């Protein structure tokens, strides 16, 4: 009988994960034991403290990891500078995401259903709403997801990676179903995400099995060694190739790359908007980081490069990158819903990221991290803005004239996500619009925003890898992408809201000339069920019925405003003075297996 040897565990290296996952567990206990009155506050404080704590540990670990990466518990957790960098970005973005989630705005309601398990439209749901129930489970769920993401990005073991994938996905499936409004849409989104996600997980684990069949191990490093030593099973390399491809497919699903993107628009639209922002930003970081780990370790991990494997993987990534950019930008052009538009933007960004990754060289890792940070900040900020632009129903008789609406009049409903409804936002909320415009410009990659430096890095990455023509394609796709961001800008800044009083001077002349275009400025009279195409016919309805819907901007109670401000300032600073952050992420590209 062999003696049990207690493993040596570097607890400090595990600390960020332990803090986040531990806080998740404590959060569950809080649900059970802390009185309702203070429960929500406790959860928020705990979640924010856990994420800040995790980030602090990451900062402490950084100097050490940059010099010497560590493996904990036999590689189950492998902290390279790249992995730790990804963890840090996830922690920062999750912190901002939680701030948005926590904001109840001046309406006093957050974005979540009082009882997510209630069947929509039932008396039970009604009861739950009237008795003011709150679901504070979202905070521990968020923490579990964050823990999964952080582990996902930093393991050398495919089985652990699979577990992390589930740990991050399952809470997200649940969170998607918790929207306060448009409940059916939200639940449909969750079901879709779950089914497709489960499918992707199955492909992933099947791939792992095939790889194990080839290499006899699930450790990436050892797989790479096997590959390099030559094929132990002559003629069985098909196992390896199809195995790796299946694993990559599972990861590309999470990244949201075409052709595995179909879930993205529906899920991003249906999920509660703060969750969408969190998911779009943090999941992308984790998934892209994991993808880079898998691809790069197998292909260029061990000392030299295995050109054969690298070339085969490169072809796949290049094709996917092109498809993703094209579909993301072209389909994004015709979207009429802000959330869907941002979803396609997120797909397009997956494409740009893959352009860099397809370069298959170590410096790409640092530019990828920078890209993820820039993209994440803009995404969380943009979705945070979406949470504040709402519909307001006015039922009183005063609704008959189209005069300006007083503050606090009528009932604030859900988000006004039709792009047409955002007309005139620039006047109602200039600062919010400026922030949103900044996020869009950053996503479009306009210089002096973080997005430009990020794109520059991705394209230089591809060029370094010899794929200059892919970089040129990326540049062309950027032009198309700009077009669809600009569309939103035009509506927000230049178009007038239908309930807005006319101004003086040249503006009045212009308004007189443009009577023909009022239909496009019309606001649908009911929620998201109304398509933009129907908007024109609804102008009359608005005037004749006693109810009318106007678009209003609710004020944040603080957290979301802070998140938006932080995202906006960071976007500008990373665009104008990126060198400190670039210097940090540059250390992450030292590839050490």
């Amino acid at each position, binding site marked *: 009988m062999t003696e049990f040897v207690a493993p040596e565990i570097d607890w400090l290296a595990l600390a960020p994960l332990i803090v986040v996952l531990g806080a998740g567990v404590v959060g569950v206990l809080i649900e059970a034991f802390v009185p309702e009155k203070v429960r929500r506050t406790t959860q928020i404080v705990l979640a924010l403290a856990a994420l800040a704590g995790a980030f602090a540990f990451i900062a402490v670990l950084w100097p050490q990891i940059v010099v010497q990466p560590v493996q904990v518990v036999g590689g189950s957790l492998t902290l390279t500078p790249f992995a730790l960098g990804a963890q840090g970005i996830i922690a920062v973005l999750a912190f901002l995401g939680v701030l948005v989630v926590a904001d109840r705005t001046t309406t006093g309601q957050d974005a979540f259903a009082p009882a997510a398990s209630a069947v929509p439209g039932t008396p039970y749901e009604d009861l739950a709403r009237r008795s003011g129930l709150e679901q504070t489970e979202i905070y521990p769920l968020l923490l579990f997801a964050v823990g999964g993401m952080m582990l996902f990005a930093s393991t050398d073991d495919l089985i652990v990676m699979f577990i992390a994938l589930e740990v991050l996905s399952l809470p997200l499936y649940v969170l998607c179903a918790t929207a306060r409004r448009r409940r059916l849409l939200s639940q449909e989104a969750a079901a879709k995400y779950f089914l497709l996600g489960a499918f992707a997980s199955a492909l992933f684990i099947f791939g792992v099995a095939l790889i194990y069949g080839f290499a006899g191990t699930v450790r990436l490093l050892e797989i790479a060694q096997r590959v390099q030593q030559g094929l132990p099973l002559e003629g069985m390399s098909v196992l390896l190739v199809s195995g790796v491809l299946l694993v990559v497919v599972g990861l590309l699903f999470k990244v949201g790359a075409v052709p595995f993107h179909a879930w993205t628009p529906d899920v991003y639209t249906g999920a509660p908007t703060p969750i969408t922002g969190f998911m779009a930003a943090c999941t992308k970081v984790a998934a892209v980081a994991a993808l880079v780990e898998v691809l790069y370790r197998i292909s260029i991990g061990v000392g030299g490069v295995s050109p054969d494997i690298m070339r085969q993987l490169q072809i796949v990534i290049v094709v996917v990158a092109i498809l993703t950019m094209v579909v993301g930008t072209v389909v994004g052009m015709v979207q009429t819903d802000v959330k869907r538009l941002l979803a396609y933007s997120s797909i397009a960004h997956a494409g740009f990221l893959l352009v860099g990754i397809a370069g298959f060289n170590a410096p790409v890792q640092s530019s990828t991290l920078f890209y993820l940070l820039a993209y994440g900040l803009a995404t969380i900020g943009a979705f945070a803005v979406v949470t504040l632009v709402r519909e307001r129903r006015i039922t009183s008789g005063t609704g008959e004239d189209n005069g300006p609406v007083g503050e606090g009049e009528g009932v604030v409903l859900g988000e006004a996500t039709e792009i047409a409804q955002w007309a005139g936002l620039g*006047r109602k909320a200039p600062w919010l619009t400026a922030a949103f415009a900044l996020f869009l410009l950053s996503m479009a990659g*306009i210089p002096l925003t973080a997005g430009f430096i990020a794109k520059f890095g991705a394209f*230089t990455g591809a060029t370094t890898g010899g794929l200059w023509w892919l970089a040129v394609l990326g*540049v062309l796709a950027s032009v198309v992408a700009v077009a669809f961001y600009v569309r939103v800008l035009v509506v927000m800044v*230049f178009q007038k809201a239908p309930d807005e009083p006319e101004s003086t001077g040249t*503006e009045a002349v212009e308004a007189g000339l443009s009577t023909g275009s009022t239909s496009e400025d019309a606001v649908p009279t009911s929620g998201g069920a109304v398509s933009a195409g129907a908007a024109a016919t609804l102008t009359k309805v608005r005037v004749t019925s006693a109810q009318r819907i106007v678009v209003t901007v609710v004020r944040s109670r603080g957290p979301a405003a802070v998140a938006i401000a932080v995202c906006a300032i960071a976007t500008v600073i990373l665009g104008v003075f990126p060198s400190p952050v670039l210097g940090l992420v540059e250390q992450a590209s030292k590839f050490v297996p």
Partner: protein
Amino acid sequence: MFPWLTVLIAWPLVGAAVVGLSALVRSRTGPASAGTGLARPLALLFSLVEVALLVGAFVAFDTGAAAEHQLGAVHPWIPQIGASYAVGVDGVGLLLVALSVLLVPLVLLAAWKEQGRDEVRLRKFVGLVLLLQAFMVAVFAARDVFLFYVLFEAMLIPAYFLIGGFGQGAGRRKAAVKFLMFSLGGGLIMLAAVIALYFLGIGAGIDPSRAFLVDELAAIDLGTTAERLMFVGFFIAFAIKAPMVPVHSWLPDVAGNATPGTSTLLICVLDKVGTFGMLTLCLPLFPEASRWAAPLVIVLAVISVLYGAIMAIMQTDLLRLVGWTSVSHFGFIILGIFTFTPLGTAGSSFMMLNHGLATGALFLVAGFLISRHPEKSQKISDYSGLRSVTPVLAGTFLVAGLATLSLPGLATFVSEIMVLIGAFGGSPAGSAGWAIAAIPGVVLAAIYVLLTYQKIFTGAPAAGLEGLPDLHVRERVVAAPLVAGLLVLGLVPGLALTYVNAPAEQSVALTTVDEPADAATEMGSDK
């Protein structure tokens, strides 16, 4: 040495920030939107101080070494990707900086009444103008390709909001989007070339942390194919900006829909970045490719000259007409640059300044005219007989128009004749022939200017226009410096030529010294 350029760049930025923050000062009386009326005087004050700073820069500039880049500074900016903050101007750059500094107070004054009493709009307008000014000064001063590119793209954003947010035409949103898409499209093609330049520069042994400095990049040999490809990338971006046929079509739309003040800044200053970029980036960085492309460029430039003039004659909208005349003039400027003669290049540089003054005057005076019309009509046919009603306006319009058609005695004549003579002796094959082909452009200019003047100002006054007021003091203050500048530079062109001659000779030398072998074989084949 005092970093004049950095101060000239930073000051308008401070101005824009102060104007933005003036929103915090609430008006004690009246509605919130009426505001305090602070924005306009503040912006004017900042732009006038900027003029004073410009005078300082001129004093500090050593005209004896006008070909060298002076007044600048070099600091590492993003060492990880090799970008530096490097600024400096030669004589040409200084003149264009001067143009962007001088036109802004005039535009602000001209637009004094334009935005009504809506303080929020007004604040946005003047803030954007100051922001644009900072970008324009910076782009003419940039000596780092990355910095130049960043500014080249970033200045589109304030310009976009100025066109789309403040124009008078119903189509201004479309015009703004068209402008942005054209410019960004060109800019992103240039981005691909910028990235390629970075790699080639590092490959040639440039220190990766200073890989974008123009002076360093100009010294390396890129290889024929790469150089030509990159030239095309840069040139398309500049041709769109300039604008040159066939990528000019955004310009008339913008001119017809933006406010005259915006058009002045955009077409008279911002678009010079296109021709300035050809002169200071394409020629030094890609000398061989510039010669290679010159025959085609010259043809397109001459087509621009003629096509722009013909289209101008056919316009019914006054502002669009002025827009088309610019297409014609930019053709002349590009023609001069690509003749590779000191005279032609100097003429082009001089013309960049003169076009700014002449077309600026024309846009602003046309704006004054339109603001007087009861319906703010831009249609030429809605006006007639105004010479007797508004004699000063008519006179100013005539001088600006005559400058546009290059009447001898005005500055534009000097520069245009320099370009044409330069083109006769130009080195690209057939450039003398193309110079002759461009001459009808001068005649066509006379037609579009004089016909327009005749339609608007002669004959009997149109109904409803009899009582129009003449130019008042504010408007005269706007027009006077422009007219005076055109006259003075026309009579004493040496004032400006001392700044442009030396850089012109140097840039011509750059494009010829580079390939003695080719020149020798050409001479050999002649025998």
